[in-house]
């Protein structure tokens, strides 16, 4: 027999004005198992709480109902109060008679009747409440950062500097990501390599950061504090223990391949570092193009290597390790414009139609043209350049509906750089809107106009080659005239889209993706770096298009969240979670399929049933992963699965209490 105490709050006049509180108290006293009921001016105040504690002692209560404001307001307050008593904090129900009763109903009679109903429902429910306990989960204080661009590097450095070990996984042979491909960064025009490569070196030499290049996350199991992560490393065919990075192999390799780093505008070798300042500063062999590996001939690198570091028979490696937290920083890629925009030439476009990232390589002093802006087709200096913004962005028909955020500044920077290097050149920028919120951004854009860039408001409709020129047809909607520009070079500022890996990684980590496959944060305003998966955080453009300052800020924020997690030795799990009754479970696995957190697994148990030992497959809930949504309870046909704190019986009792 439970002994229920009911406490009705006046909340000053907030409740008392439209609900007849004494009448509710009277009604409460008649409810089954209610041994005590009283009212209070302000239940949440210290004296209010004290009177509840006194009543518990005096009347030997073993559970309480508080009729007051919303549980979203004070449920935690009252649970904390119960901590100081002998009652389990979960033996508490709140009847919301303020937000959902007194504040919305003007009629005292109807409001009072409803308040009585709500109290009756709460009392019926609490009669079936059981004490609940949180468990603790150990925290493994090692972080995994996926992606070695500026976001991943910043996050790894921050966590490592705070004293925790970090593994940084990068799928390319070098750290640096997209930022290290850039020439200069807006609006300050500091050289990207000059600020990015020191970070790369710092990461590479940090005693608490382990860098794994040519590596990908293959599998993730476990939960916050205890992720089991399998990392696959592609063969590098070079023994990094022996290699000194002297570069002799690369200089003598006879095979030339289009350079990915130079965005197809330059060449690299089959054994290569993507770029001079690569970290690690050691080469890898591109097995797809190596003659020795494919044809058995050549082997020049092996013959020349002074330390004997070449390993043609190198194989991929897999390792599984435990991490407490994961930061996803896999960045973005550029939309494949050629597939979408036949009107700009599509797959058969002139080589002189390039992307902004290709322009970065063209204008970069260590790029394929040593920083001389040249037409890819013939190496001449373009005297007229057209920059087209919003290619693939703000285009729900052919590309993406969203704005890619960085391109307005990126385009302005390209115009500025071109006019800087080719002072007698002409530069036209086709734009739809100029969006430059940011410190010093609009000033930069205005200066680009002063540099001589002609801004034309309109989308380009067609780009075609005629007489060695690229004819661009557009409208300047400000002049209200269609315009034609005959350009030597066209730069398309293409949309940012999620990295190829985003979807796979998202589903592996239980991170939702939005309709464009960007990884979703837990809350767009208040939890911008957390995800719906505990212990998994987002940094940089994998969450959505952004520029470098925002990326770095978000990376440090994500690192901070990891450090907060690591500041505790143990985590307290949610007490209101699902649990399965082994006796009823038939092992059908419906709960496993419906669980969005992979918290339910099937396992074999051997137990005595009717005095025989039986081995059966039953479901098991991992308390670290279960978030308490209750989807499994409805999916469970034999009725074995139930949710603590919102059990089938409790809800049924509430329903019945209402219908009395």
């Amino acid at each position: 027999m439970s002994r229920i105490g009911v406490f009705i709050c006046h909340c000053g006049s907030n409740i008392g004005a439209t609900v007849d509180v004494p009448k509710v108290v009277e009604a409460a006293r008649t409810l089954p198992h209610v041994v005590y009921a009283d009212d209070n001016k302000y239940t949440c105040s210290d004296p209010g709480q004290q009177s509840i504690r006194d009543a518990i002692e005096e009347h030997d209560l073993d559970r309480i109902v508080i009729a007051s404001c919303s549980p979203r307001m004070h449920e935690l307050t009252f649970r904390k109060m119960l901590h100081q008593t002998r009652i389990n904090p979960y033996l508490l129900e709140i009847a919301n008679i303020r937000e959902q009763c007194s504040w919305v109903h003007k009629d005292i009679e109807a409001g009072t009747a409803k308040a009585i109903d709500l109290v009756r429902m709460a009392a019926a429910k609490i009669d079936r409440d059981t004490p609940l306990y949180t468990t603790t989960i150990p925290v493994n204080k090692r972080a995994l950062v996926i992606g070695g661009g500026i976001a991943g590097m910043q996050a790894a450095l921050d966590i490592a500097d705070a004293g925790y070990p970090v593994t940084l996984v990068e799928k390319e042979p070098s750290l640096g990501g997209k930022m290290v491909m850039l020439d200069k960064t807006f609006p300050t025009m500091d050289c990207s390599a000059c600020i990015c490569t020191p970070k790369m070196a710092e990461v590479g030499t940090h005693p608490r950061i382990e860098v794994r290049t040519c590596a990908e996350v293959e599998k993730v199991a476990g939960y916050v504090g205890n992720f089991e992560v399998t990392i696959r490393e592609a063969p590098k065919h070079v023994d990094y223990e022996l290699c000194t990075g002297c570069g002799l192999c690369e200089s003598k390799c006879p095979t030339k391949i289009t350079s990915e780093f130079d965005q197809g505008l330059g060449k690299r070798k089959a054994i290569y570092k993507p770029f001079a300042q690569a970290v690690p500063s050691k080469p890898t062999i591109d097995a797809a193009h190596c003659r020795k590996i494919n044809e058995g001939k050549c082997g020049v690198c092996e013959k020349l290597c002074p330390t004997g570091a070449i390993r043609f028979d190198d194989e991929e490696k897999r390792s599984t390790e435990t991490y407490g937290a994961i930061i996803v920083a896999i960045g973005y890629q550029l939309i494949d414009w050629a597939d979408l925009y036949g009107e700009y030439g599509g797959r058969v476009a002139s080589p002189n139609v390039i992307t902004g990232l290709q322009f970065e390589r063209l204008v970069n002093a260590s790029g394929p043209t040593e920083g001389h802006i040249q037409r890819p087709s013939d190496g001449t200096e373009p005297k007229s350049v057209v920059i087209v913004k919003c290619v693939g962005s703000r285009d729900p028909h052919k590309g993406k509906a969203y704005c890619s955020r960085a391109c307005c500044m990126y385009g302005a920077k390209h115009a500025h750089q071109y006019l800087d290097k080719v002072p007698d050149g002409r530069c036209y920028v086709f734009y739809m809107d100029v969006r430059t919120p940011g410190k010093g951004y609009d000033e930069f854009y205005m200066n680009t106009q002063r540099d001589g860039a002609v801004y034309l408001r309109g989308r380009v409709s067609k780009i075609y080659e005629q007489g060695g020129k690229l004819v661009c047809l557009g409208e300047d909607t400000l002049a209200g005239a269609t315009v034609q520009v005959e350009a030597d070079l066209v730069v398309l500022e293409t949309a940012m889209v999620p990295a190829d890996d985003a979807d796979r990684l998202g589903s592996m980590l239980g991170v939702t993706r939005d309709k464009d496959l960007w990884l979703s944060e837990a809350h767009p305003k208040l939890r911008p770096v957390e995800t719906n998966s505990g212990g998994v955080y987002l940094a940089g453009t994998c969450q959505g298009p952004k520029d470098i300052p925002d990326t770095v800020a978000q990376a440090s924020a994500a690192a901070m969240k990891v450090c907060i997690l690591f500041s505790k030795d143990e985590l307290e799990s949610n007490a209101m979670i699902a649990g399965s009754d082994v006796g009823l479970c038939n092992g059908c696995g419906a709960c496993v399929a419906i669980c969005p957190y992979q918290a339910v697994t099937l396992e074999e148990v051997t137990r005595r049933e009717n005095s025989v030992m039986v081995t059966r497959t039953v479901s098991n809930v991992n308390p670290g992963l279960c978030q308490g949504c209750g989807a499994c309870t409805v999916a469970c046909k034999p009725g074995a699965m139930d949710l603590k704190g919102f059990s089938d019986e409790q809800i049924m009792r509430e329903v019945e209490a209402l219908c009395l």
Partner: protein
Amino acid sequence: MRYAYFPGCSAASTGISFTLSASYVAKRIGLELVEMPDWCCCGTSAALVTSRDLAHALPARSLALAEQAGLDLDVVTPCAGCFSSLKRTVHYARQSDKNRHRLEEIIELPYAATADVMSLLEVMARPEAMEPLAAAITKSLNGLRVASYYGCALVRPQEVTCFDDPEDPQSMDSLMELAGAEPVRWAFKTECCGASHQISEPHGARRLIARVFENAAANGAEAIAVACPLCMLNLDMREAGINESRAVPFDIPVFYFTELLGLAMGGSARRLGIDRHFWPTGKAVRKALAPPPEPSPDNHSTSELPQEVTVA
């Protein structure tokens, strides 16, 4: 290969060469075309600007009569304009029963919209036609540089036409390649020829023709191939007029793609209707039919960034 055939109003008049060459090629590759009973004009854009109902009803009448006659075949039409009207009607009728009933009420005939509509180009570019085409082609066109001109109606709107890329279609190019011609990569494949505006709005519309010739010439085309009698008339008949105001005249003959296929099969210019063109075709035909071999220098390499292998 058996289709119901919608010749279109120009088949026996301005499009006579198309009719001659198409029937020649069709016969050679076993493509049987059964003319639809008592078909009427598709209405083309003139009906559309008059009334949407009329624009759907005219093709619906011809299609419904074919159904009534038990002609259970998909429909093929050589004219791009007719294709566009017929295809749009089928699309409209299939969108809802309400639409279909509306048409039935106007044309006083039951119309089930079962038959699909295709252009002659689409039919010939299908694998089952490409095979006999390849077998029937006995002569190579000697690498004649042909710019394939598709115009608007075959490719737009893509949701309705369901045919080839609206900016850079390839089907005619691949037929030209099959005939031994060299497809020209150019940018005006699907730009408008001006259609009937060449009569009603000649001043502005002439420029459209000039743009097409200009880009074809700039990309080294020796001939233009078309798949529409109106495109043909606008380009071929008006090339001389365009040249009057030009210092350097164009000299690009225009052919129906079926004429070029016919030439490659050994058909005579007369039989194919090539002798009825306005702009002289002799030079191009002579080049196309010159006795091989005469390997043309390959100055037309693709600019795709090559993964080249150079030996040090």
